[in-house]
């Protein structure tokens, strides 16, 4: 790839805890990626539209409200509808282990739970982004 990896960092749903999203945004930027942060309260539609418009390679969502089971599969579904499944879609936040298989099944490529070093997320993106 001849340009930096472009990432959309976003907060789906209503929760306002954006420390994690911002820390990840900075870490990805420090790792040489181009980062667009959408801010809070994004609907799945807004996130997917922004991702396509901004021509990003990665959508990184952070969610701590417990609404992950509803909102993340919705984003995956919209990506499919738009034929944009090649955008690497990942998530993080307070997400119980037992919920993860279902999210992966729906099309989220990885879920990063509390305590994950940002370096792990960076590595995952580098290894899995469309080439």
């Amino acid at each position: 790839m001849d340009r930096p990896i472009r990432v959309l960092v976003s907060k789906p749903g209503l929760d306002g805890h954006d420390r994690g999203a911002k820390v990840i945004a900075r870490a990805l930027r420090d790792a040489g990626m181009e980062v667009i942060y959408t801010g809070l309260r994004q609907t799945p539609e807004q996130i997917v539209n922004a991702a396509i418009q901004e021509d990003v390679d990665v959508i990184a969502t952070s969610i701590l409200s417990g609404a992950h089971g509803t909102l993340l599969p919705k984003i995956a579904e919209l990506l499919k509808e738009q034929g944009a499944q090649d955008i690497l879609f990942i998530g993080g936040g307070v997400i119980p282990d037992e919920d993860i298989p279902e999210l992966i099944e729906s099309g989220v490529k990885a879920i990063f739970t509390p305590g994950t070093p940002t370096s792990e997320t960076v590595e995952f993106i580098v290894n899995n982004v469309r080439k």
Partner: protein
Amino acid sequence: MFEKDKLSNIENSLDEYEKVTSKLLEKRPERREEFISGSGDSIKNLYTPLDIEKIDYSESLGMPGSYPYTRGVQPNMYRGKLWTMRMYAGFATAEESNKRYKYLVEQGSSGLSVAFDLPTQIGYDSDHSLAEGEVGKVGVAIDSLKDMEVLFEGIPLDKVSTSMTINAPAGVLLAMYIAVAEKQGVSADKLRGTIQNDILKEYIARGTYIFPTEPSMRLITDIFEYCSKEVPKWNTISISGYHIREAGSTAAQEVGFTLADGIAYVEAAIKAGLKVDDFAPRLSFFFNAHNDLFEEIAKYRAARRLWAKIMKDRFGAKNPKSMSLKFHTQTGGSTLTAQQPDNNIVRVAIQTLAAVLGGTQSLHTNSRDEALALPSVDSVRIALRTQQIVAHESGVTNTVDPLAGSFFVESITDKIEAEAVKYIQKIDDLGGAPKAIDDGYIQREIMDAAYKYQKEIESNDRIIVGMNQFQIEEARPTGLLKVDLSVGENQKVKLAELRNGRDNVAVEKTLLELRKACEGSANVMPYILDAVKIYATLGEITQVMRDVFGEYQQSVII
């Protein structure tokens, strides 16, 4: 505080000590080159009277219960009455949450603290499209007075004090509480409790804002004014550093930014024509408790002293109650680890000690499983028991402010206060807290601290037990509390029933009156109360206000 010649003796022996120590260090270096506090401040190996020689006891510390309140707001602190053990709770439906409250009271919890779900906090009814997936998740779903009646069913509102974590629509939930009390035969002047009502920190760190700054400040001062007359025992705001700290700030930033917000509220109320001593006694604060025991204790002491000075010198308050900073504490959610969650019990115990040794008026202790999900009932009980053990077994409650006079604690109390003063000056220079937030200054400072902290963890400069050291293979945690999606569906059904069964003409009429009040300058509280009483929903009331006031646009900063 010390005699001059004795200080010079100490100076000499300190020199001697440093010489001996540095020789020793040549042979055996210390574990780290620099020792840093939880907030990243450099900590010396030894503190002596020299570090606090400038402290004048009467001016800087004084007696507990009197200016500048460094040692506490009551003369005898916990010897008279323990702090209120107030466990923040609420999830799913009003019925479920009501059960949890009754359980907590049975187990010795002395005050209620209501957690609302996000749609409620942002003023959406459960059937709003943006509420999809969020109903009942992080707190209880309240759409109308009907839900509120169920929430407090069988709980005598003249006996308990209730804290409600509600900000943008605080007036609506307070009105519902007043209406429920009225139905119980309890008049508003008997009600005790707190609404968070602190919009500035929502813009900074917590995110459940609705309206732009100016109308938000007006709603807040309307509440101050209304309560000073009608609900005199109610704490009208809980000016919160908690979320600022959770967002990654240092301890000194927590104090500086929180008190800067406090200054903005006082200024707004004075500008609206209120007299400082009429509303300031009902201002309350809310701080975090992290793991660095002494730094946290110093933080609370510094905050009390600084607020007392601000109220006296800057605002000319005369009533001692206007000067004494009363605060609630919650242990630090961000300090909990998802790894080996039982270790969190120990962290919470240390944080409890910090809050108590710092003189808190009430305390919520987090449960061990909160880095994973909402707390289970067993975890909540352990968290409450932690407070009870500190209260009844540790002995720290036997005397007031036991760490006063500690060279170290007094020294860092001064340091945190001085740093906080600098932040407040900077914010004054920027034109006050609302302006500093719009500019993104406060958010950026917090984010810088948060990112620095994260990097310290990732480079192993900071050890988090079980997370970046002492890890083990763990089985997946089981028995986590889960809120079913059916909660949202049921809430929708109840809303439809409510809208069919009430007097909709009257609802429309009161909403129109409310709109006029919002457009004009009348206090909106009586209008909200009228609307609530005839079962206008939270979403309907908030929508009227959205129409008139508009919505806040966040400045996106990373």
